[in-house]
């Protein structure tokens, strides 16, 4: 990266109370969450659940307030012409680094999947036959483990049918790939100052995102009610639901972001040469897309 010369001053925002409120909201949310899940393990603390839920609600409302306020302020500053090329470059680098950290987060769960499938499950099946406590365990994937006693309670290996790749997951792959194309098409519209194409492209992307989420919800329902596949289905269930669940959560966030960008486009925000807000969301959407392709291959298909 070479040096650059800058025109004018860098925009340093005025003092803002939003970060402090956001942190308070997060503290309330997580402390409330801890209190509300404590009774699962210690019935004597059941009285904590209600105040815990109250704290969660208060924290959640504070976070929502900040999201509207803080992003509203950024949008206002952007439309007010505070952000020039120099600031724009900061946002771009920042977004790239943020997405890199998200990649590392998913890597932890893919790493867990790899470890269980390639190392721990086969190892449990390959103990010396004279000494193994898991005599009949074959260690084939998908696996819910050999069963045994966990913290004093018996874990019976649940019977489940693994999720096939070529039903809903394949349709979902198609939906997300198409949505990657539509958001790029919308971007071309923006670059050519064709606002109609921008708005239609974004609408299609949002619709595809919502369709994806709807199908995934249906898939989860199907897994729990008919396949016997749950979060508690050993190695396969844990990695399946945590990976697809965190991905689904990211699709949800991405869809909300796309809806915001769509609303801004309809209000006439963004120009052909000043639209980081749009691009940041598009990058995020492509990232979610790539994670899904890995999921489809490594979780559903292979």
């Amino acid at each position, binding site marked *: *990266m*070479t*040096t*650059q*010369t*800058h025109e004018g*001053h*860098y925009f*340093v*925002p*005025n*003092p*803002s*109370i*939003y*970060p*402090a409120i956001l*942190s*308070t909201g*997060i*503290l309330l949310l*997580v*402390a409330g*969450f*801890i209190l509300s*899940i*404590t009774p699962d393990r*210690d019935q004597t*603390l059941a009285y904590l659940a209600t105040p815990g839920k109250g704290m969660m609600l208060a924290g959640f409302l504070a976070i929502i307030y900040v999201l509207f306020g*803080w992003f509203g302020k950024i949008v206002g500053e952007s439309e007010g012409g505070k952000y020039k090329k120099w600031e724009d470059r*900061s946002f771009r*680098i*920042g977004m790239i*680094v*943020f997405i*890199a*950290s998200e990649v*590392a*987060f998913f*890597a*932890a*769960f893919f*790493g*867990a999947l790899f*470890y*269980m499938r390639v190392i*721990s*499950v086969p190892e449990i099946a390959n103990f010396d036959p004279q000494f193994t406590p898991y005599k009949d365990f074959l260690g084939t994937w998908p696996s*819910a*483990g050999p*069963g*045994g*006693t*966990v*913290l004093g309670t018996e874990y019976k290996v649940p019977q489940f049918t693994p999720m096939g790749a070529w039903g809903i997951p394949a349709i979902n792959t198609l939906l997300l790939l198409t949505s990657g194309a539509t958001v790029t098409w919308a971007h071309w519209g923006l670059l050519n100052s064709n606002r109609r194409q921008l708005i239609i492209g974004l609408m299609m992307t949002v619709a595809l995102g919502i369709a994806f989420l709807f199908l995934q919800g249906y898939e989860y329902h199907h897994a729990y009610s008919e396949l016997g596949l749950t*979060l508690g289905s*050993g*190695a396969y269930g*844990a990695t399946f639901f*945590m990976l697809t669940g965190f991905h689904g959560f990211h699709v949800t966030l991405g869809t909300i972001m796309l809806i915001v960008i769509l609303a801004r486009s309809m209000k006439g925000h963004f120009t052909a040469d000043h639209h980081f807000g749009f691009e940041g969301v598009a990058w995020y959407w492509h990232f979610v897309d790539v994670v899904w392709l890995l999921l489809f291959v490594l979780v559903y298909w292979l």
Partner: protein
Amino acid sequence: MSTATAAHHHDDHPTGIMRWLTTTNHKDIGTMYLTFSLIMFLVGGSMILAVRAELFQPGLQLMQPEFFNQLIGVHALVMIFAALMPAATGFANWMLPLQLGAPDMALPRLNNWGFWLLPPAAILLTAPFILALFGIGDGAIATGWTFYTPLSVQGGIGVDFAIFAVHLLGISSVMGSINVLVTIFNMRAPGMTLMKMPLFAWGWMITAFLLIATIPVLAGAVTMLLTDRHFGTHFFDAAGGGDPILFQHLFWFFGHPEVYILLLPVWGLIPHILSAFSRKPTYGYKAQIYSFWAIGILSVVVWAHHFFTVGLPIPALLYFMYSTMAISLPLAVLFFCWIATMWKGSMTFETPMLFATGWIILFGIGGLTGLILADVAADAQYHHSYFVVAHFHYTLFAGGIMGIMAGVYYWLPKMTGHMYSETLGKLHFWLTAIAFNVTFIPQFFLGLAGMPRRIPDYALQFSEFNMISTIGAFTLGLSQLIMVYNIVRCVRGGKKAEAKVWEGAEGLEWTLPSPPPYHSFTEQPVIK
């Protein structure tokens, strides 16, 4: 704390508590980070003094083993996440814009959020102690700072609090890293190429890359722990096909780079001090940058040396042993450069230089004892003994905190506009250096003799060394009050500091008055 920039009331910002809650100014935020770090340093230190008091004699005198376990775990989490990391981030906030010729950090509001995530995290870490007094739960996390399963799956409410504290600290670190990287890549003065950048910025750049790559993995690991505890998953449970060792892999994939996350900012700042007080340019600027890169990259592929004794396959043991030892090569390059910077210089020993030179020796001991632990055969003997405790305190207290202290004395006149008391500074150094060795040299021998760590009681033959260690620890802890007093005195007044506080100091931060104006470089300087 507010007097640091009190001379600039004409600048437009709220006053009182609102100034600190809402600030977007890199110096205010840096001051908050450093103050928070100092407070948590004293909190974490008090915890371990209670532990050392218990270990003064064999037998249980002061506390139950459960409480002992809570203290050592929270001590480590507090010192690593709430004392050492925020101190480095505080310096990054204060100094990067000054050193790079920037008006401020690149993303000021995010910067503020990064700081204000820390107090909630500190509350989450320590709250279980308080809740236990009201009969809620059985106290803080009692697994040590490593959260090892299955102990952490069985643990009480303290584990849940620690999990979410780590989440908040992680978000804070990621926000801080984003800010540092954007500032480095986008805010440098015209003409300052990356290869003209101060080494402190280089050290922080690699630190930020490591944080971005590894903190989210820790977040993932503790999330799996949470679901194992509460939502019926079997990530770390062989009955479900999982494995407790999986947690160790995930944890140390973060945990080993974390060591370099703590040390790289220090490696960046020490050369500035060595060069200033030797009145010579830094030796081997490029070699040091390449070494930073080499160590940064190696640090993410050596993690399993933290659990050699857990039953890894032999090829894995060999790989992790050799790759770990390979880190000593770039580190040796750094040691050579530090010594060569001083070679034939016209050296003076003000407090920062005392800390920097003492740091080289003590950190060197930390590095060399690490080589012993990296040896698979030797590690089988020393693993989980006090030898390990002594080793990582030589790297993290001497290598980390004493390096940060060198930076504190080096930059304090720049930040406050006043000179600190040199006499008290020197007294602080000598007491710290001596008491530190009195505390930890006996622990090497305790470890070699077979005393296990994390146990509140011990066999009689370990008594003398434990007594010496405890006396050293209390001296070390009390000596830090000299530094606190010196800092407070320096903030409140004293001899005026010049713009270029140290005769031999180089860098853009010394071209601004002491203290620097509220907004640093409103016009960027041009570097030739």
